[in-house]
């Protein structure tokens, strides 16, 4: 049972464009939603995170939008650069519960020059 559903599986964007990755969840006990970035041969690295009482969080070119009623959240990468080419994972955790971070299946982003 996939606790966090992520789409699309892969995404190709031109340099300067906007990359959008979407995630959905069912467990309303989740109370923190981090995004991770992973380059080939490396471990995932925390990119940005949001709590469900916030509808949007922006850090540089990266923005998380959160829709609590729809149980959906998304990552927007503005002015996408070739260096952003990586696999992105959304994740969710019930911090007051098992403290087990669950990941989506990932989106492989390719930004063409």
């Amino acid at each position, binding site marked *: 049972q996939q606790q966090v559903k*992520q789409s699309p599986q892969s995404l190709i964007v031109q340099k300067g464009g906007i990359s959008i990755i979407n995630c959905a969840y069912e467990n309303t006990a989740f109370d*923190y*939603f*981090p995004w*991770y970035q992973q380059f080939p*041969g*490396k*471990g*995932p*690295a*925390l990119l940005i*995170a949001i709590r469900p009482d916030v509808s949007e969080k922006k850090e540089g070119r990266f923005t998380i939008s959160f829709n609590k009623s729809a149980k959906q959240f998304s990552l927007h990468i503005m002015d996408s650069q070739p260096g952003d080419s990586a696999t992105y*994972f959304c*994740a*969710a*955790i019930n*911090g*007051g519960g*098992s*403290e*087990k*971070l*669950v*990941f*989506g*299946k*990932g989106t492989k982003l390719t930004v063409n020059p």
Partner: protein
Amino acid sequence: GAGVSQSPRYKVAKRGQDVALRCDPISGHVSLFWYQQALGQGPEFLTYFQNEAQLDKSGLPSDRFFAERPEGSVSTLKIQRTQQEDSAVYLCASSSDRGASTGELFFGEGSRLTVL
């Protein structure tokens, strides 16, 4: 150290062999996690330690998998009688106490296990 260190980075084992994967967490991090990442998939939780106590091992796929963290620092993931389906990247992550509850983990580069 500056980050989470894992060794070996690559391990090739013949089916039936035992393997041991080591994780050196960030100094001072009380929480340590092991995840399994199959090719093209997201990391899947295996087990969680707070200091030396293993608080959750619900993700270990079988009794062939065993993890320990005897002194609350270095951890070892052991896989006995390896099978081909064990082939994956094994990721270790550490965090502060607060980071564990917010999912803000620091991952190592992983140990890639190939079982022939």
